């Protein structure tokens, strides 16, 4: 048990279910090519709502990966999470079920919208037909903990389980929560977030967000950092990662894909974007400090990219405040403009992209963004080759959270 240096938490597996790809490699290919998939929402019952454009997961057949007995008990958000979890386990070379040491592996998810479609269906039965028509799975499908519980049960994982029910930044908080669990002694944590906010009533609930874009042209609806910034477009899907103790991973011969090195989190109030400048800058400093990383060592920034002018300005200034002169040199990207913001899933998808970017030595572009009005080196139009050893992933939430995560290349075994 004793180690000469503190335990390090490393990424050994990635699973993705996203609007632009139903596996991690497909997602990365789309991200690298700057493919934009924002489109009209096609889900039943959504046609008359003023929100027209989103990042929908298409072509996903949950029954390809998940047994019927789980499908009937769960909402779409858990289907995405369970599928991504299985892909992450496969990628990490871990057993899909019943590992030899079940207490060694935990499950942590972030959730910002819960099982809305399932919940709406049961609400309709209750109010349309009567309480006796509410089914037995409502109590376990709608709540935020559904995905963590089902993943734990399906794969037989008995380690520390957790759920951060959060705004977007919670996706990074969940990764940090997992990494800290690993540093404290857990062998590995299956961690991430997937969301399914595109059901009619869930969409009604989102209409009040002042930051929501209701622009109907998919190419113009979500363009952060531009003069035409008009808010964000929601998305569904997400990613699950295996975050594991480094020596455990090396002992079993698993590829160490990245190190989860540092995290910082602050709060500056819902929709008070100007104040998020100080909060985000502070989160970045805390994350770099925990990672033992100088600002100059950051090779790429995955921006939050809210798409609201004052929020974009605050983010550009926060990067400058925290990274100093290096801020004008470091490439910044926001691949989520191609798929929208999948709430808690968004920064986990960004973290997955950051791992691939470091592995492939390329900064992916920011789809649909061509002409920015902030002092950033935003990578647009096409991917840019670069030697990347350290990535900084940023996220802010609509209820006021700011978070920063530092991930470093897996082969940098000593810093």
């Amino acid at each position, binding site marked *: 048990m004793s180690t000469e240096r503190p335990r390090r938490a490393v990424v050994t597996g990635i699973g993705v279910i996203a609007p632009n790809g139903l596996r991690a490699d497909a997602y990365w290919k789309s991200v690298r090519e700057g493919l934009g998939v924002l489109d009209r929402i096609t889900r*039943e*019952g959504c046609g008359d*709502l003023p929100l027209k454009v989103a990042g929908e997961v298409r072509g996903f057949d949950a029954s390809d990966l998940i047994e019927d007995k789980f499908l009937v008990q769960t909402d779409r958000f858990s289907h995405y999470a369970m599928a991504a979890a299985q892909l992450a386990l496969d990628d990490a070379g871990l057993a899909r079920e019943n590992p030899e040491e*079940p*207490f060694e592996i*935990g499950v942590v998810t972030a*959730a*910002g*919208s*819960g099982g809305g479609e399932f*919940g*709406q269906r*049961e*609400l*309709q039965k*209750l*109010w*349309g037909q009567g*309480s006796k028509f*509410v089914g037995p799975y*409502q109590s*376990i499908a*709608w*709540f*935020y*903990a*559904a995905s963590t*519980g089902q993943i*734990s*049960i399906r794969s*037989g*994982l*008995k380690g*520390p*389980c*957790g*759920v*951060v*029910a*959060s*705004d977007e930044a*919670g996706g990074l*908080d969940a990764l940090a929560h997992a990494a800290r669990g690993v540093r404290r002694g857990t062998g590995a944590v299956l961690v991430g977030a997937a969301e399914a906010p595109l059901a*009619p*009533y869930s*969409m*009604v*609930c989102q*209409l*009040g*967000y002042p930051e929501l874009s209701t622009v109907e042209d998919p190419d113009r609806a979500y363009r952060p950092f531009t003069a035409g910034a008009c808010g964000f477009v929601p998305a569904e899907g997400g990613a699950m990662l295996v975050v594991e103790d480094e020596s455990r991973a090396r002992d079993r011969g698993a590829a160490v894909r990245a190190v989860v090195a540092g995290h910082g*989190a*602050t*709060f500056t*109030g*819902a929709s008070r974007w100007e104040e998020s400048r100080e909060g985000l800058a*502070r989160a970045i400093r805390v994350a770099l400090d925990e990672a033992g990383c100088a600002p100059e060592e950051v090779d790429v920034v995955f921006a939050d990219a809210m798409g609201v002018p004052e929020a974009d300005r605050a983010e550009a200034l926060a990067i400058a405040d925290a990274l100093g002169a290096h801020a004008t040199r470091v490439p910044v990207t926001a691949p989520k403009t191609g798929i929208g913001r999948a709430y808690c899933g968004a920064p986990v998808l960004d973290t997955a992209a950051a791992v691939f970017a470091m592995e492939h030595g390329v900064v992916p572009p920011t789809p649909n963004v061509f002409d920015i009005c902030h002092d950033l080196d935003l990578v647009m139009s096409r991917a840019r080759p670069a030697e990347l050893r350290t990535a900084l992933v940023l996220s802010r*939430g609509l*209820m*006021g959270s700011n978070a920063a995560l530092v991930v470093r290349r897996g082969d940098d075994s000593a810093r």
Partner: protein
Amino acid sequence: MTRRVAVTGIGVVAPGGTGAKAFWDLLAAGRTATRGITLFDPVGLRSRIAAECDFDPADHGLDPDLSRHADRYIQFAVVAAGEAVRDAGLDTDAEDPWRVAVSLGSAVGGTTRLEHDYVLVSAGGQRWDVDHRAADPKLHMAFSPSTLSSVVAEQFGARGPVQTVSTGCTSGLDAVGYAFHTIAEGRADVCIAGASDSPISPITMACFDAIKATSPDNDDPEHASRPFDNNRNGFVMGEGAAVLVLEDYEHARARGAHIYCEIGGYATFGNAYHMTGLTSEGLEMSRAIDSTLDQARIDPTLIDYVNAHGSGTRQNDRHETAAVKRSLGAHAYDTPMSSIKSMVGHSLGAIGAIEVAACVLALKHQVVPPTANYETPDPECDLDYVPRTARPRKLRNVLSVGSGFGGFQSAVLLTTPGGRTR
């Protein structure tokens, strides 16, 4: 870096009365606050009883915007947090706001408000393609579970890590656990930690009806919640909030704060068995208990009281009895173990924090709260459940445990000076 974590303030909104004092008075007297549901018309439901809070936001000086727009569970949390901060003597303006954190739990969050507006936009459940024009423009605040922590952080000027924890019925214990780690590992000096839920609504009552988890004893609500009793037949829904001020021990000492106790350890594991079912062995809960004892370096024989999850379902009470026996061995038979759910019901995500608050108060008063309504022993539940009457006892180390849907099993250990010997 691991720092000691002190509890310096408590605030409670519970059935039977608002405030930590009213809460403790209820527990110490062994009174039950369960009754027929008044918050809505429960006609047609199998279980029509609950432990409700008599709570009027106007009594608590909430700002008008919160009184009018915030969900009931958020109002509970703001009031409980206010009491906790006052109790801690904490001047939030004098603290470095970046070093003040918030960690609050809730199992079902804004579902009561979500259901209310759902009825409006769906013409009473008649249409799938809901009409957005009938919805409250602030409905997103009910949709986003992080509204809870966001509103509380705003009220008390916290700018450090702000988290909402939602692990079903262990949310309250886990929120306290996350706060414990946040301070122990140096990410904040002060954390406003606890949980809140107001789940007494048609959809939540109906979904527990569907799995027969709640008691159908509608004719005798005062005696319906009977944890560990052989005639128990399900839990009684509750609501409420509890908030603690957790603080770096040295930080608390430096400002001369009263320290109730310390958090000695926290752990959680999954049973990976069933979303709502429990094994009869209690292996995973036992492991959580063992881990907390290990963290505090306390021998199991030094546990003076176990605050049980004790929901009053057939399987839970058996599961938990087995878990405690597995961890405490023969000492389990000498250790009082009670369930306050017999008095304040089961407020889902909130109850874990309410139970930790009960443990802090038990340490303060050196009294074990009872299990009300306990009359008939169950041969499979053969520990000392402190029937009906509170019991004075020397208390130094107390344990609070919880089980939740999803298979989560959590434990929090509270310690007082002199309690550690190993």
